[in-house]
């Protein structure tokens, strides 16, 4: 048996509010195998037994030495609400590390594009990428993790009202500030990802998108998390699993349903 994923009881080291409804939680588990790639996610499980399914949450940072994982999540429903109430020393069931993650083999000009709660998983990516990072972060209103991102590249911020950074969206900023790009890495709402895909194809840049889908298991067992990925079949695509074949896919192969 090759054990790479594991369901464990992890301990909460810290759980703090970043901005309204957004929490930064640090969990620790000695049991996990810390063979991790940025873009991978974990499953968090609710203690309320009426909620059976895992909540997939991307890994924001990993401290392999201390065996700590940082997660940043937004409260949108019952599960995330429960997680927001976890306190230091509480336990949480967690499965890690899930999904494929981003490839780190590009040492040129890296363009990192995040939107909302799609930004946290890009932090560990920015940290580990070799080349030169330009980081574009879009938020509706409140911004977070900006100082952390600034450690790993030039950061450009877009918000809807321009209270933080510039008014507009990340694509506006990319059009303005990107001179050269070797690879784009992106995570965020579907609308943004579509725009990034278009930007990449217009500018002929290699791009990778991290997708979301509703999940039943998070590790490939239920085929619940299908996305259409271009492939040489009769129909020109194949249904792939976000949880194991993704969440990161080549932008040019992602077929967004219209």
């Amino acid at each position, binding site marked *: 048996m090759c054990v790479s*994923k594991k369901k464990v009881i992890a301990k909460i080291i810290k759980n703090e509010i970043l901005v309204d409804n957004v929490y930064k939680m640090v969990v620790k588990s000695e049991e996990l195998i810390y063979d991790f790639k940025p873009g991978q996610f974990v499953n968090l499980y609710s203690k309320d037994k009426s909620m*059976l*399914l895992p909540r997939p949450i991307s890994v924001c940072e990993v401290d392999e030495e201390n065996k700590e994982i940082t997660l940043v999540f937004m409260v949108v429903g019952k599960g995330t609400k429960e997680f927001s109430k976890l306190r230091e020393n509480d336990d949480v069931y967690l499965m890690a590390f899930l999904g494929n993650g981003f490839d780190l083999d590009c040492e040129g000009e890296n363009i990192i594009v995040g939107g909302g709660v799609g930004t946290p998983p890009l932090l560990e990516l920015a940290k580990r990428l070799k080349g030169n990072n330009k980081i574009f972060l879009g938020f509706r209103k409140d911004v977070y993790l900006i100082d952390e991102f600034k450690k790993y590249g030039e950061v450009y911020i877009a918000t809807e009202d321009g209270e933080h950074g510039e008014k507009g969206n990340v694509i506006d900023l990319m059009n303005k500030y990107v001179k050269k790009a070797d690879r784009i890495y992106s995570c965020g709402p579907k609308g943004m990802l579509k725009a990034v895909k278009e930007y990449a194809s217009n500018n002929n840049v290699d791009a990778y998108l991290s997708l979301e889908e509703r*999940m039943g298991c998070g590790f490939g*067992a*239920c085929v*619940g998390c299908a996305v259409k990925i271009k492939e040489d079949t009769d129909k020109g695509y194949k249904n792939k699993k976000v949880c194991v074949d993704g969440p990161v896919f080549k932008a040019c192969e992602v077929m967004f349903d219209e």
Partner: protein
Amino acid sequence: MSNLGFNIAGVEFKNPVMTASGTFGSVGKEFEQFIDLSSLGAIVVKGISLDPWDGNNSPRIAETYGGMINSVGLQNDGVDNFIKNDMKFLQKQNTNIIVNIAGKTVDEYKEVARRLDGTDIDMIELNISCPNVKEGGVAFGTNALMAESITKEVKTVTNKPLIVKLSPNVTDITEIARAVESGGADCISMINTLIGMKIDIHRRKPVLFNKIGGLSGPAIKPVAIRMVHQVSKTVKIPIIGMGGIMNGEDAIEFIMAGATGVAVGTANLINPTATMDVLDGIKKYMNDYNITDLSSIRGIID
């Protein structure tokens, strides 16, 4: 030593714990890292059709209170790819292999069964109860005459023992059970999912792209237990019971209701070692009550 084994239509099972089709990856590969597959009574493969099927669009999964709804829609690569790509893996697992089959027409079911007949699998499970594809046989599963005739037809093309999987979405499950028994089924598995729906009131849309899906998980266990009990009093062929089994006690409940084997479904998705936990729980119960053979409690409920 307590005896967990039994025999169905000539196939020996080392223990009653199987996987419920569609909840254990396609053939179980995803679980190798969590459990020892050879400890299972059987691996039940995800629904296989003649040609590759795409399945439904996403979202395919909705969580409900104590359960979940899925509308995967039998996504699979077709029987030939299964034989080419997956049989080798399965043959190595040292456990029974049961293949769940689906089709749009009787002829498609027959052709899948025929192609599997030459392989090294142990049994075929006829899925006439998938609520997620119009063509997935649900009509066969809700009409006694059709259920009988498709069972008969499939029996003509295969020598493998045939399990027929029943739908709970019927007025009288004993009628369907009798029909498939008289059609020649060697075993019944039950229950498939109840048809359910969930609405996202904020988006004002069904959560599932397909609108409706199959409800599974502990929420449905009381319905499954009732039906297994009813059917076990009606037919003579053995039953593989499933529907919401989360632990060994749930499995014992099915066995007391009349099931010979049990299958773990939704629990696999939440807890990848669920099958082994169920098996351990069964052993613990037997130990606690000095039961040396499961047959002494099987169907013990009048």
